[in-house]
């Protein structure tokens, strides 16, 4: 595994006015590189026997999930705990939301406890903005509708950089249901921001009209993935498909034309997937389980990336974890 390197030594600190992580569109390339460098420094810490850092002791992180999630919610919870923050995790079911409470009122209730960070996942676009407007907390978007999932994009960049040593100049093919994918949108923005070229591949009915304006190219031919350094496979968002919308005639036809199979990839191409996978639909199990697949690496990267995001929002400090912090851990 090539050593990850900070592209620049003089990464500027976070700008004081950036209080939230809602969209990759709000970040500069410096921001992204600072976050990746910070995550890399946390990697050393999580490999230690005592995995906890005291960095955010006394801080409170609240996770509010209005959609089901395994990876993202557990990863945020663990990230906050590893940084010694107090964590409270709420699910929409079993809470006042079941009694018809509005998001604004839920947010105000949580805000009364004075949390430092609110991490929110919500099925509707614009929910994190609303929470940011009505509370005093830093807000982290853990997925809002089909809009954004910025920490997923950051962990994907981290994974790519760790495996391939760079992002600049790489060619990434994103395959599948782009229309319904917040992961695709965040990743296109993040990859283009960091100098990668992005090709979207999938059925024309699942390609948002005008998406080229984000700086990517579009193909409906699965052969277009062959030249890519990284093939990023999207989940077929069956749960988002409107009844009778006719996006694809059948999953069978989708798999036949756009499924990522061993015949369609070449050795050395890295395969990524945000999970959860539909094995045998968008991705052949043989591809998912091959040594070129980075799917588990992505999950591990999620932890350090989310630690970096929490750290970055709650400190104005230097770009990376300071040396004395590591000493404190060691002692």
């Amino acid at each position, binding site marked *: 595994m090539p050593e990850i390197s900070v592209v620049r030594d003089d990464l500027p600190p976070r700008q004081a006015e950036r209080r939230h992580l809602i969209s990759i*569109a709000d970040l500069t390339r410096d921001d992204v590189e600072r976050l990746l460098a910070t995550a890399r420094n946390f990697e050393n810490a999580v490999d230690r026997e005592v995995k906890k850092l005291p960095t955010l002791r006394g801080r409170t992180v609240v996770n509010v999930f209005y959609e089901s999630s395994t990876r993202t919610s557990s990863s945020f919870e663990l990230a906050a705990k590893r940084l010694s923050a107090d964590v409270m995790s709420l699910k929409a079911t079993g809470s006042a939301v079941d009694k018809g409470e*509005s*998001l*604004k009122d839920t947010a105000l209730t949580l805000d009364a406890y004075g949390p430092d960070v609110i991490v929110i996942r*919500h099925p*509707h*676009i*614009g*929910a994190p*903005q*609303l929470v940011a407007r*009505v509370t005093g907390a830093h807000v982290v978007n853990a997925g*809002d*509708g*089909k*809009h*954004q999932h910025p920490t997923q994009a950051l962990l994907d960049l981290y994974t790519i950089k760790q495996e391939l040593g760079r992002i600049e100049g790489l060619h990434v093919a994103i395959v599948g249901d782009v229309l319904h994918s*917040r992961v695709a*949108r965040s990743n296109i*923005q993040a990859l283009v921001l960091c100098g990668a070229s992005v090709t979207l591949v999938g059925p024309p009915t699942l390609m*948002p*009209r*005008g*998406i*080229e*304006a*984000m700086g990517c190219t579009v193909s409906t031919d699965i052969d277009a993935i062959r030249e890519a350094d990284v093939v990023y496979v999207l989940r077929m968002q069956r749960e988002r498909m*409107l009844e009778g919308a006719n996006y694809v005639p059948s999953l069978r036809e989708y798999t036949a034309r756009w499924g990522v199979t061993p015949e369609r990839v070449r050795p050395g191409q890295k395969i990524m997937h945000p999970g959860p996978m539909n094995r045998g639909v968008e991705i052949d199990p043989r591809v998912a389980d091959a040594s070129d697949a980075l799917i588990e690496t992505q999950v591990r990267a999620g932890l350090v990336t989310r630690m970096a995001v929490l750290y970055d929002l709650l400190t104005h400090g230097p770009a990376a974890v300071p040396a004395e912090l590591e000493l404190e851990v060691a002692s």
Partner: protein
Amino acid sequence: MTLLHAKDAARDSLVIRGARVLDPARGVDALLDVRVDEGVIAQLGADVQANGHRVVDGTGLVLTPAFVDPHVHLRTPGREDEETIASGTQAAAAGGFCAILAMPNTEPVVDSAAVLGALIDRAQAEAEVSVGFLAAISKGSEGGELTEMGELAAAGAAGFTDDGRPVVAASLMRRALQYGAVAGRTIAVHCEEPSLSRSGQMHEGAVSAELGFAGYPSVAESVMVIRDVALAAYEERPVHLLHVSARESVEAVRRAQADGVATTAEVTPHHLVLTDDALRSLDPNVKMNPPLRSTADRQALIEALRDGTISAIATDHAPHARHEKEVPFEEAPFGVTGLETAFSALYTHLVEPGIVPLATLLERMSAGPCRIYGLEAPRIEPGAEANLVLLDTEATWRVTEDGFRSRSANSWLLGQELRAKVRMTVAAGRIVYEG
């Protein structure tokens, strides 16, 4: 019969001195004094005698026929927490309007003479400026059975529309155009093909692709415009197209007018000023139906307003309760308020930068909408009822949440500084606003 209703109150007498009197429909543009005797314009000229009337100094101000808004949601009956006839007409007065037309998509829908009659009674008790009420094309605006258009017209319906919803079935639209001849009123349509716009939150294009919204494509509007114009041509009946938003719709209207089809169209201030780029803020106050569209669409609307293809500005004033707009963008209802900001917003963004001449804007806000519904247009000449607005085009003011007379504050202009202010509105011979 009269289609407009307001409360009965004493009419005012006054003299406005030294204003630039601008009545584009009559070709008047001169510094003049205007005397109003008990609500009727009595004299126009230099050095008009005050006759003991109140004298208003109009120096540096523009005096023009008051505005008429052909598309307002008064939310009454049913949602009086959002707007009432009193609050909506006070808002209209503050915006320089002497008359407004209210849409029938209330709870219940205005689809019977009983509901219409109750509204007219209410307007005669509390309307600050004149209100006309449109009635529904179909019962409950559900697109099934025609309303009793003959009886509704006799009871005072100013026109017919299922606004808020499209007339989905072409057969019903055809019958409405045919039967509308009995009623003798304008048929107005919200053009949207629901199988194309389904779940659409904003214009389909680069911005929706980036933000992840289901797109509401411009073709969802233009296919209905083309269909309805074809039906109007076939039936040789006039049709009015509400709040058009797409370039292709404008082109269809222009072709129809050139072919002699009696087609009229209106456009909102927000579609003339904003594009879908504004949606990047995810502010529920830029969520409307039809949605804000691309720069090319906006340009086409402005061009059509200039050349008269679009003959009216309509605010589509759509009040919403604060708690209903304070939700994630995707959950928010469509619609924004507009009565109190329409002229200032358009002056600031179209007239001052030299995009649309002032006289054109004033015509499209007053005489233009009246022609569509066959209403008598406000005019500045002796003998006419005084329907006047006095405008200060040098003033600047900031739009704030607590500055509205409307019961709702879901304005797309909150926090913005605007040029031009309404100083006085005279509606049906009464001074209804001074600011």
